[in-house]
């Protein structure tokens, strides 16, 4: 598979997972949360300082439709991650020709 096609397909898959399939993710507590609930130390958790942010908990504040809210948050996350990773690699990379 050619480079361009490979990366486009890869990014498309990530976008579909984050933008569409994320809605169908299990909402049960994850392993750590479950242990914290069962053993009883979940109450020691504090809200993150950014818990009130526009994208907190993978939802866009103001968008009522849950499917849309998590989907858009996921797409924003994919773009942000890709962008930051790209800049990071550019920053540390030295030119090799």
């Amino acid at each position, binding site marked *: 598979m050619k480079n361009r096609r490979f990366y486009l397909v890869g990014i498309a898959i990530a976008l579909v997972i984050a933008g569409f399939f994320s809605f169908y993710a299990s909402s049960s507590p994850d392993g*750590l949360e479950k242990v914290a609930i069962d053993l009883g130390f979940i109450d020691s958790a*504090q809200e993150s300082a950014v818990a009130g942010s526009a994208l907190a908990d993978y939802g866009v504040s103001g968008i009522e439709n849950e499917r849309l809210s998590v989907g858009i948050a996921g797409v924003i996350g994919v773009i*942000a*991650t890709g962008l930051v*990773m790209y800049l990071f690699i550019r920053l540390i990379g030295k030119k090799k020709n």
Partner: protein
Amino acid sequence: MHIPDGFINIPTATASAALAATGLGYSVRAAREKLDERAAPLVGLVAVFIFAGQMINFPVAAGTSGHLLGGALAAVLVGPHAASLALTVVLAIQALLFADGGLTALGLNVFNMSVVGVWGGYGAFVLMRKIFRYTRTSVLIGSAVGAFISVPLAATFFSIQYAIGGQGTFAASTVFAAMFTTHLLIGIGEAIITTLTVGAILKTRPDLVFGMLKVRK
């Protein structure tokens, strides 16, 4: 697996952040030396794939879910140094934009997932690839075993952090037992996702896969 603020006290979180920073500093230097320009875009793709994959919680037992950690996956695809950096970017985005994982706990999470998860998974991968004689199959077996091990290993390090600085009164052994067994189950999901993904990339672009470098053609 993302530790929220408050579970672990600040001194322990700070110490973990310092350890994580040391590990990342090493990875930055190594990645600068070893990462060639051709492979750099794959690091970006790995990061976005892990971000997306971590959104998908899968059920593992009654009332419990897990999601991809991605440390072993990233290490097999782009090497452990770049993998550490990719996981760290994912964790930072999650903590800062999505309030997933605490801010003061970021160092704990980076240490457990970007350092322990990546290097633990990679170590198991390297061992399996050697045992199974550097074949294509050995890369898949290594991916599965590395992925499987990385999850309970990261959970073990949470238990250690909890034993040192947990804001609760539970016996360290109780926390460890619960964390370890729960994350063994999640590790099975991790192994499946990792092996399928590595397999798909081996079919399309084996030349890009870091873990294939020492494999006989």
